[in-house]
């Protein structure tokens, strides 16, 4: 098959571009340790509130500087975070802490995102989502629901305060 010289050069450049892209992505995984959410077990959504660990929502220190945050995505609260819910409570952790968020949904699909970090994971009823992140910089981190979850989806948020 005859291919024009310009075309061959162009295709070669494309190949180089793609290879470089794959290398960059590979480095982000293997050198920088960025990992996508992986399966962490399943759960019966209708009974999530009664099922461990979601029967005990909130922050626990599992080791010095290491926390586990158990949360439930619900229309329309990242339970137990505050957001616009008077009974909720935002969490405070010292800078440098590593937090593992363990989340599920008891109703519809939600999306878990923390602004200014690369925390970004879907929260799907029936599935358990787990993400780990080390908060090095102090500040107020906005926790947002980024998947449409009904009429007041934009009222589903909260804060992680790193002191």
């Amino acid at each position: 098959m005859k291919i024009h010289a310009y075309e061959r050069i162009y295709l070669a450049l494309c190949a180089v571009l793609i290879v470089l892209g794959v290398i960059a992505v590979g480095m982000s995984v293997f050198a920088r340790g960025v990992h996508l959410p992986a399966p962490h077990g399943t759960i019966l959504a209708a009974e999530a509130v009664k099922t461990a660990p979601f029967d005990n929502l909130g922050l626990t220190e599992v080791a010095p500087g290491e926390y586990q945050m158990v949360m439930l995505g619900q229309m329309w609260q990242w339970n137990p975070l505050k957001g616009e819910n008077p009974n909720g409570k935002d969490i405070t952790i010292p800078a440098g802490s590593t937090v593992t968020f363990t989340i599920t949904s008891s109703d519809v699909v939600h999306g878990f995102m923390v602004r200014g970090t690369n925390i970004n994971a879907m929260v799907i009823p029936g599935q358990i989502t787990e993400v780990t992140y080390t908060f090095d910089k102090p500040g107020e981190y906005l926790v947002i629901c980024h998947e449409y979850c009904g009429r007041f989806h934009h009222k589903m948020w909260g804060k992680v305060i790193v002191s």
Partner: protein
Amino acid sequence: MSSVPYTGSMTAPAPDKVAARANWREFPKEQIWPIGAQLGLGMVALGLGGLLGLLQALERVRPEIYENPATSKYLDYYQGLSLHGVLLALVFTFTFANSFLSLTTMKAFQRPMRSTLLLQGSFVLGALGVVLAGFALLTNRANVLYTMYAPMTAHVSFYLGATLLVVSTWLVSLNQVLTLRDWRKEHPGEPMPLLAFASIVSFLMWDLASIGIAVEVLGFLIPASVGIVNAVNPQLTRTLFWFTGHAIVYFWLLPAYVSWYLMMPKQVGGKIYSDSLTRIVFILFLLFSVPTGLHHQYTDPGIPIWLKTAHFFTTIVIAVPSLITAFSLMSALELAGRSHGGKGLFGWIPKLGWGNPSVVMQLLAMLTFILGGITGIINASYTVNSVVHNTAFIPGHFHITVGTAVAQTIMGVCFWLVPYLTGNKLWQPKLGVAAAWLYTIGVLIFARGQMWGGIDGMPRRSAMGAAQYQPQEWMLSNQLTAIGGVLMTIAGVIFVLMMLMTVLVKNRGVTEIPVAEAVIGPRANWSGLDKLGRWFILAFVLIVLAYGPTFWDLARNGGRATPVRMPQMGYMPLQMPANMGPVLFALYAVFAIAALVGLWKVLLGKPSEPA
């Protein structure tokens, strides 16, 4: 290399002056009206959808649009967004593909479609689908967005409407294949006209792609919405949706590629760069569009890492045909510009017909699509996806792809297609040039706003103006979104007005379908490219390889059933009569019988005759 001389459509008689004057009589009237009607439906969808888009863009700076007592009774942000998504991503794109690629098939084969019934049926079912889905959407019964993620559930009429819209596309595909068979009987051993090849492959790709959403809607969502089952597995239905959901973007894009590859060169006075390369590009889309869908689920908890990785690699493969396209189109344009006296490195650019509204629309669409391709590669890049997934970056990205590259190309095509169909001259062509620039400038501002916000964590699909958590830093990106949205809407209004006036104002003139010839003709020694049946089977095998393990894994540890709910009801479970089961099955049965009878008639019908 040996190449045979190529004259666009191989069997085309020289266009006869008389036939050209009454050019819509080139094909039978009863086939032209459903094509026009289908296109008209798409224009209505564009007009209404665009207005809702304007409200969404303005909401960012004026939340009271939705939040004051006078309007909040009638307007809900997410209801509007559901309408916007359905009207533009489904109705507008499907109806255009149906009408445009039916006409190109007829033009390429120089004969009417095999079945007038299928052609008219496609329009009728599409229109019925719009009515059914529209009823549910307008009455607040389907605020589920066009992605319809379970366990959120809409009124059954929404799903029935969506189903009919998809069925309307299948009818076109069937009609194309039947017409191809008629043509082949009379032209044994000849390469298929390139225009027909591209039109048919686009639909074959979509036939495979739409299996996912068909199974999701017919198998899970309709039964759930009528209360036959009261729980579904959300991870499974999401996966079925994205089986279709990535490839659907190529079903939006390929009609635009048909125009860019095969018609634009003619419109700028040039030729197609290479016939075989064009065929290879379309075959690559057929093969690799579907087995990439998991790249929309990188952040899903229920999909194993190795499968996400596998789909990352197939996604890279699907970038190749688009990269080739960038080259082929540029060279076709450059050749055309040079043949009109363009000199030097860039001297060919001004020679491309910037005064022709159809050409300007599409040139700007192509330029914008470069940014669309780049942002698409960003989205697909595995870990980088975590930065942008479900943020406003994504609407930024797809308004320059489907919202511009495709939408502007459709508008550009309509600038000759509507005159062709009506026999009227285009009303005020200069306005069309203005609309093209206005829309492109608008969308670039709009997308800049959305992407900027998205990288800083602004979520998509959110009534941003009403969100109390909104930090000060997002204000500028909201303002850009609103300003861009206003410009886009003005352009859209000009376009719809032009179409309306072209139809209404009697100003007779001849318009022909632009079909370009290739510089390098089809390869005589390799007819393998035309063996569509084999490519189709190979595509199917690739899908089984990519999705077989996914569904196998989901079946084994894919999570459990979750009760379904209506979105606007909060925690309240669905309350529907449980005895709807027989009614639903009766409905399915009626549809199935009607389909079988129709098919029977079509298959036994007379073959089409050359025009």
